[in-house]
């Protein structure tokens, strides 16, 4: 199983190197960083520099989950790989989840990318006073994002209408996930919704880890990220199972 997962991770790297579209979010990240840092500099709010560096990184992680991971099964089906995959003895869920895990890992490179843009172009070195919390939260966000991506990968194949709305998911998620503006500053009627989005817990924790002040209630907040992300994993595994059942029953493994 581990050998299969590693092979799939290597395959995904090779596939991404040939697909600029999959890496587009990493190319966009520096420009988002420049935009947010320009706003911070113009308004004289240097205290928000950390926010301006974290936001484009989280945008990149989600964008890659949406555009690269979310399309894995759909693309395999279009390119004729799903047929081979279904016929092979390897568990499809392991194949898909390993590839999604690799995409998520690559997307996390954006954290360093955005930090470097701030350092090189704006001369701002964002300090991380709580490094373990920062790394732990990033890991939890990575896991939860992979879970969410697996759910999207299944959903985009099962329902055509979901694919229509794929491009529409980004900014609502950035708002509800508190990517730049903390949920506490959103209109009151929106705040309950942010509680069920794992990223809102994660981004709050990441911002807290950049502050000198002691961080409160770490464990329950990390647990919220993991539980909500884990729900995504379960949903994703179920949806992938449903996809396979459906395409086998309908005889539509190789075409929509």
């Amino acid at each position: 199983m581990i050998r299969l997962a590693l092979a799939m991770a290597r395959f995904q790297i090779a596939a991404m190197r040939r697909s600029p579209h999959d890496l587009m979010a990493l190319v966009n990240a520096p420009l988002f960083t420049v935009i947010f840092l320009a706003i911070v500099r113009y308004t004289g709010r240097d205290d928000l520099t950390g926010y301006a560096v974290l936001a484009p990184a989280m945008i990149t992680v989600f964008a890659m989950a949406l555009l690269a991971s979310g399309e894995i099964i759909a693309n395999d089906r279009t390119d004729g790989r799903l047929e081979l995959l279904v016929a092979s003895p390897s568990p499809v869920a392991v194949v898909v989840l390993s590839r999604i895990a690799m995409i998520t890992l690559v997307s996390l490179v954006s954290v360093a990318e955005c930090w470097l843009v701030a350092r090189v172009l704006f001369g701002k070195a964002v300090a991380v006073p709580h490094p373990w919390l920062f790394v732990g939260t990033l890991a939890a966000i990575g896991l939860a994002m992979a879970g969410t991506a697996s759910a999207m990968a299944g959903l985009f194949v099962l329902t055509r209408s979901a694919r229509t709305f794929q491009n529409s998911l980004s900014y609502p998620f950035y708002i509800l996930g508190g990517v730049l503006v903390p949920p506490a500053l959103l209109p009151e009627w929106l705040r309950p919704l942010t509680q069920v989005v794992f990223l809102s817990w994660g981004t709050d924790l990441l911002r807290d880890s950049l502050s000198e002040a002691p961080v409160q209630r770490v464990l329950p907040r990390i647990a919220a990220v993991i539980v909500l992300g884990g729900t995504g994993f379960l949903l994703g595994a179920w949806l992938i199972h449903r996809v396979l059942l459906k395409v086998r029953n309908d005889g539509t493994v190789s075409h929509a």
Partner: protein
Amino acid sequence: MISDGLRILRYAAASGFADFRTIYTVRTWITGWLFRVLCQVSFFALIGRLIDSPEYTEYLLIGNAVMIAAMESLFVVASTSWERWTGSVPLLIAAPASLALVLCGRSVQWLASGTASATLALFLLSPLFGVDLRLPMALVVIPLIALVGLSTYCFGLILGGLVLRADSLRNVVGNLTMLSLMAISGAQVPVSVWPDWLQALSAVLPVHHGLAAIRGVLSAEMGFTEVLMHVGMEAIVGTASLGVAILGFKRFAESGRRSGAIEFGS
């Protein structure tokens, strides 16, 4: 001759709108696309709330609403290269009609949709963010939003001509252009905060002058002559871009005929 050209443009546009109808119905355009646009503009306008400045909220709301027209118009970069997928490029080159004329009209659906969604974003979100647009005077900005969309569309045609040769880069080029314009055109921060060379670059790119005119009209702090000057500059940027784009399409057709590689994009 002119009527032939207009007829070709009309058919190309009709084809583009037919493409658009296969992507969106009225319902999915409203619940999917327009919803995303409203969220995108709100996302940036909320930064004003984070900064705790109503004036800056207004600045971001207007800038990002207008950017929607530019963003959607830039979809022309990707949709121009769709001709590669459909295999229509060799047929268009063999046909007596100008390839440039067809491709210029082929993606105008984005311009129409962009103008509509930007206008709706501006007028629907302003009351939610406490921005007073001073109606009905503010309605004057609708043709100005269309002008920003049109000049960006013409600029996007140049890039569309380039990505016809490198199809895999279509989305990357479109996105990078959109984010660059978003950064330096005055949508997020005044153009004056950038180094001189970036200000000079911004002045010859779309959005900059059109957005300045829109801000001038909405704030009622800019004289009529100055507004007109910005409108003229935006129109000049658009016209010059269109000229370069047409030359680019002609070059593409000529080099494709010479090398026989029209089908393969190399």
